[in-house]
């Protein structure tokens, strides 16, 4: 559909929030915690912080929770009864205050869950999510959205995107039908707005590399010292994957309690040594260098090769949260200088 532009007054924004909460919707929004902002359930408008570049955690958990019940079972000597979680009804969730990068991340994420296998639970959850993104007025040196075909005002993935204008009011760009419905239900809060260039109200994010170039280079960079060099300080934790809005690897776990139990889908990370460990003890990816390479290749080569969408939206979270200060941009920019293997 064609994007529709509206104006929403600063004061109306709070009313909009009030209406949503009033209708019993679950709202996730950035909440301050120490020096961090975290996506969390909020009840009141006052809980929401505006002071963040991006939140420490991504918003992916609303569609891909870190622990997802797939089914539960109850077995006896004769038979086993299974309750499939795919039959569940999932709640309406509103993501309030995602950055454009986070909203855009749902595109590759949804691709992943709809490849060879259509994940019912993921899709049911995704259908119920309304994404109200806020464009970026600030960026930091970790941000590189513009290098991965996105930007501080990218509306892809959002249902509605709000941009704070110089007078404190907001431009509301309605991108989807879901967004239209929101405007309809709260029409008294939205005013018509003529076409306006929002660029002056956005942060400037320098383009650091070209994604397509990197993709082409990576075809022939499997054996390269850069992987070990750039990952030497890697501690082998999973924080980069877990804060990443696109990372979607998971592990299947059964939790048994006597004859009852649950099968769970839990987040997993290619940063862990155990991720590729075989039962025999052999580990094809047995150093952090190999694991770091996998992370980069997966995002910048395998995913775009497979589904045309890269697995990175340039939010920079992985670098910000890395306890060893391993910076993905460092690796990517130095890759640009590498000569591909012949």
């Amino acid at each position, binding site marked *: 559909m064609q994007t529709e532009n509206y104006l929403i007054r600063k004061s109306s924004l709070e009313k909009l929030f009030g209406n949503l909460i009033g209708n019993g919707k679950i709202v996730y929004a950035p909440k301050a915690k120490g020096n961090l902002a975290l996506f969390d359930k909020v009840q009141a408008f006052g809980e929401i912080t505006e002071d963040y570049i991006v939140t420490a955690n991504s918003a992916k958990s609303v569609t891909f929770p870190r622990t997802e019940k797939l089914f539960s079972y*109850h077995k006896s*000597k004769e038979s086993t009864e299974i309750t499939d979680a795919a039959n569940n009804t999932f709640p309406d969730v509103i993501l309030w205050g995602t950055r454009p990068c986070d909203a855009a991340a749902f595109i590759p994420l949804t691709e992943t869950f709809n490849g060879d296998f259509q994940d019912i639970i993921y899709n049911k959850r995704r259908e119920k999510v309304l994404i109200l993104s806020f464009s970026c007025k600030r960026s930091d040196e970790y941000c590189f959205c513009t290098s991965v075909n996105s930007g501080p005002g990218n509306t892809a993935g959002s249902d509605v995107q709000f941009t704070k204008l110089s007078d404190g009011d907001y431009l509301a760009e309605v991108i989807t039908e879901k967004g239209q419905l929101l405007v309809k239900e709260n029409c008294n809060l939205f005013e018509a707005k003529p076409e306006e260039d929002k660029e002056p109200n956005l942060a400037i994010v320098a383009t650091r590399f070209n994604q397509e170039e990197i993709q082409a280079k990576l075809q022939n960079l499997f054996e390269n010292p850069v992987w070990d060099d750039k990952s030497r300080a890697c501690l082998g934790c999973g924080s980069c994957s877990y804060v990443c809005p696109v990372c979607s690897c998971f592990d299947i776990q059964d939790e048994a309690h006597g004859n*009852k139990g649950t099968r769970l889908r839990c987040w997993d990370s290619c940063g862990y040594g155990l991720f590729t460990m075989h039962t025999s003890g052999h580990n094809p990816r047995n150093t952090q260098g190999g694991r770091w390479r996998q992370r980069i290749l997966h995002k910048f080569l395998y995913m775009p090769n497979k589904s045309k969408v890269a697995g990175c939206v340039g939010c920079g979270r992985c670098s910000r949260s890395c306890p060893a200060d391993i910076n993905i941009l460092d690796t990517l920019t130095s890759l640009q200088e590498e000569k591909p293997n012949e």
Partner: protein
Amino acid sequence: MSKIGVFICHCGENISSTVDVVRVAEETGKLEGVEFSTDYKYMCSDPGQTIIKQTIKEKGLTGVVVAACSPRMHEPTFRKACQEAGLNPYMCEMSNLREHCSWVHDKSEATTQKAIDLVRTLVEKVKLNKPLYPIKVPVTKTALVLGGGIAGIQASLDIANAGHKVILVEKDPSIGGHMSQLSETFPTLDCSQCILTPRMVEVAQHPNITLWTYAELEKLEGFIGNFKATIRKKAKSIDENICNGCGHCTTKCPTKKIPSEFNTGLGTRTAIYVPFPQAVPNKPVIDKDNCTYYQKGKCKICEKLCPTGAIRFDQQDELVELEVGAVVIATGFNVMQPSGFPEYGYGKYKDVITGLQFERLASASGPTLGEIRRPSDGKIPEKIVFVACAGSRDPAKGIPYCSKICCMYTAKHAMLYQHKVHGGKSYIFYMDIRAAGKNYEEFVRRAIVDDEVNYIRGRVSKVYEENGKLIVKGVDTLLNAKPVEIEADMVVLASAAVANPGAEELAQKMHVSYDSYNFFSEAHPKLKPVETNTAGIFLAGACQAPKDIPETVSQASGAASKVIILFSQNELSREPVVAVVNRSAPPVYSTCVGCFMCASACPYQAIGEELITDRKGNVIKRVAKVNPGLCQGCGTCVAFCRSKSIDIDGYSNEQMYSEVMALLNND
């Protein structure tokens, strides 16, 4: 897939009267992996065991749960039955439905439900059991016997006569113990020393017995068949090899007024002394605390007089390490000092004495040469009162248990008195007369009928002195609680038999359990009366509980036979419940990271290190390794291991975890 058999025992009616055993069998039969479940009157009986054995064979069971009494009772029985049916014995577990359920709860639904829970828990455990095979360890065929009383003497002689080496350690300068202090013995009135001394001499001369007197256990390490004992040989201040036992030193020693322990303070001894004339070894020791030279630095008369030059003032205690395969504890008992009972006047009036003191007075080798004379003035008492249960059966001020020997020895004392003091009058205040034993009741009858001892059923409330007499006030409960007052010349208190003062410390050194009175605990009150909870350590005599001589001797022979059985094999099969460090294929080899916290926690120093090397001999990994011979299976290391790399067979992480899960999830 597991095929578990569940066998619920009624134990006659012991279990079935409160637990619905049929339902327990029915409910547990529904559990996954349970192939068969049944209940039976007596699972431990022959037909009961046959049911188990047949079912194992017919159903091809992979595991067995017997829900019956405590595994501490019948685990070996049922494991053996499984083995006979071709199932590894460690694939059998017991669920304790008797001691932990039917005997402690009333009949109710909750009791049956608890029984079901307990059985289910063991079913889940046994599913994770794995076949285990006994560990073979060598046996050092030398026994250590602690204590040279009649118990230690008997045990030593029996073991030695079976052809095994014995080291007999006695803390006093001579063996003989309490029995050597006794005058005559009930119920035969034969002279105690006359029957004991030949045994003492036999010990001294036996080629298989090494006798160390004036010595004590310092430390005991190791395990059955392989103990390492450290003995402190206290300095006797003489060279035993040179001393010929002539006795010059003891007669000339200037310090002569030391109360003689052997004569219970009724006589004296010198600082260099032999405790009694028939002592074995008959060689003196110097009592450093009372010796003038040791205390004041001058004297050395004994050294000057000694014809062989055997005195060694510079002798030091010596610590000797021994390797022994078994230990018999025969450290005896002690007599409670009745000073906690001021009403009896013990300690206040010289003529109120204990039963043991009376033994010395009545003994031909005693301070009065066997004449009954008052300690105060040496007069022969015309009237004598014996007080039974002076401390025994008195939970308030004494000890709650019965000292067992007092009824008999008090009858004996009264009888000896009547025989020695013609025309004397003797009275015994008693609570009950306990004379169960061969010829015991007849003996007491003889005292009452033939020797006219006056038995008064009642307690003594007060003893006090008046005009040179001891006034004994009491009550005769058989005569409508009529007050009784006797003007006596002497009062003898049958003071309680208690544990030795060092018993608790000794038990801790040896890691054997003991009861609240500090008597050593037998492994089972009925079926393992000479064993302790620690394999290879046995009990003989009154260190376990008060006993008379025949009982002590029987138990000593029993303990000896246990040692002889142990020594009849060159190798010992040990329970394979030991810790193991995991190993796996390269490149992991083991998940152990070699922090060795387990090694520092192990009480047995059973954990060493192992170097994992490649083909060229380069060290790849340094990991912990358990010596299964030393490991005793406590599992402390297992709970310590952060990476869960060490586990214990029989109580593995998976087994304990599944027990918790099963116990709390009844569905």
